[in-house]
């Protein structure tokens, strides 16, 4: 197994899936590095894995979820500090203002629960079939479909809301 040939090409899909979870490019890049390194260290086991991409994405997702949790905990403690200040409400508004928008659709997707985000990312952006998604997330195919249904319909609802606003 060769790193540049067999493992490095997975970087982009891992990056996009991780980014959809942590919503921070630097953190996502770190996750890609950690995942690829882990794969390389376990390359002997990997010879027996039949879907390496799915294996890699599962590992990356776990790393991303851990990081996200840590980031959120840090944010909570930051928020508490903000609330301690006299102009508490103003601080919260300001932090919302600083959250940069990625565009109308991206903002809707990124506001979805993580499971919906990841499944939508894998299906609609990466073009993966239900079986691959189910394997990656260690859930059933029907669970994948139900979750995807919710995500797509949330998008539809927001799109139609926006349309009615402009009419």
């Amino acid at each position, binding site marked *: 197994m060769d790193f540049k040939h067999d493992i490095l090409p997975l*970087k982009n899909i891992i*990056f996009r899936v991780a980014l959809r979870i942590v919503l921070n490019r630097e953190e996502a890049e770190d996750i*890609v590095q950690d995942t690829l*390194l882990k794969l390389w260290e376990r390359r002997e086991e990997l010879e027996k894995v039949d879907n390496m991409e799915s294996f890699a994405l599962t590992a990356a997702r776990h790393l991303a979820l851990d990081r996200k949790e840590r980031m959120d905990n840090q944010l909570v403690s930051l928020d508490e500090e903000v609330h301690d200040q006299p102009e508490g409400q103003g601080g919260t508004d300001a932090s919302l203002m600083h959250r940069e928008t990625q565009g109308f659709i991206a903002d809707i997707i990124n506001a979805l629960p993580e499971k919906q985000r990841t499944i939508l990312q894998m299906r609609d952006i990466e073009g993966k079939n239900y079986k691959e998604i189910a394997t990656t997330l260690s859930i059933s195919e029907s669970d994948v479909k139900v979750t995807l249904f919710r995500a797509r319909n949330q998008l539809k609802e927001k*799109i139609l809301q926006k349309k009615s606003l402009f009419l």
Partner: protein
Amino acid sequence: MDYKYIEQLLENYFACTTTLQEEQILRSFFSQEDVPGHLVQYAELFQYATAAKEDTLGEDFDQRMMARIEATEEKATMTEEKPKARIVKMTTRHFAPFFKAAAVVAMALTIGRAAEHAIGEQEAEEKNNMVAVDPYIKTSDVQQAIRVKDVSQAETKATNDSIISRTTKDEIQ
């Protein structure tokens, strides 16, 4: 132009009954310049899906990644000393027949040396006999001869023992 097909695909898309190919058709359809007015609200969704796949990591990432891989590779070769020792063990087994041959040669040499000592013994005996004949021979010389005989016997035994133990070791291996 009739958009019934696209409308049907859209309906199926939100019902999650489209195939991957049909979803690709939707993305291609909405990536065109002139999307009909009654469908335009969905254009952004499918255009976003197409664009989002273009988000990639550059060459600078590869460089950082390769540096990290090389660093761990160096560490790995340092900790791989133990497996190396095992490789040597494999060659020992490989060369076992040669060691056996060497043992045979050593055995032959020892027998040769033993034979030489036997001759030496004879000579010592002759010397002993000479004591009676030659009154001028020193007692110390006789003692020396006896001591040489004892030591050489002990030596022969020791060499034999070591050869036996080495041969058994080879066989165990």
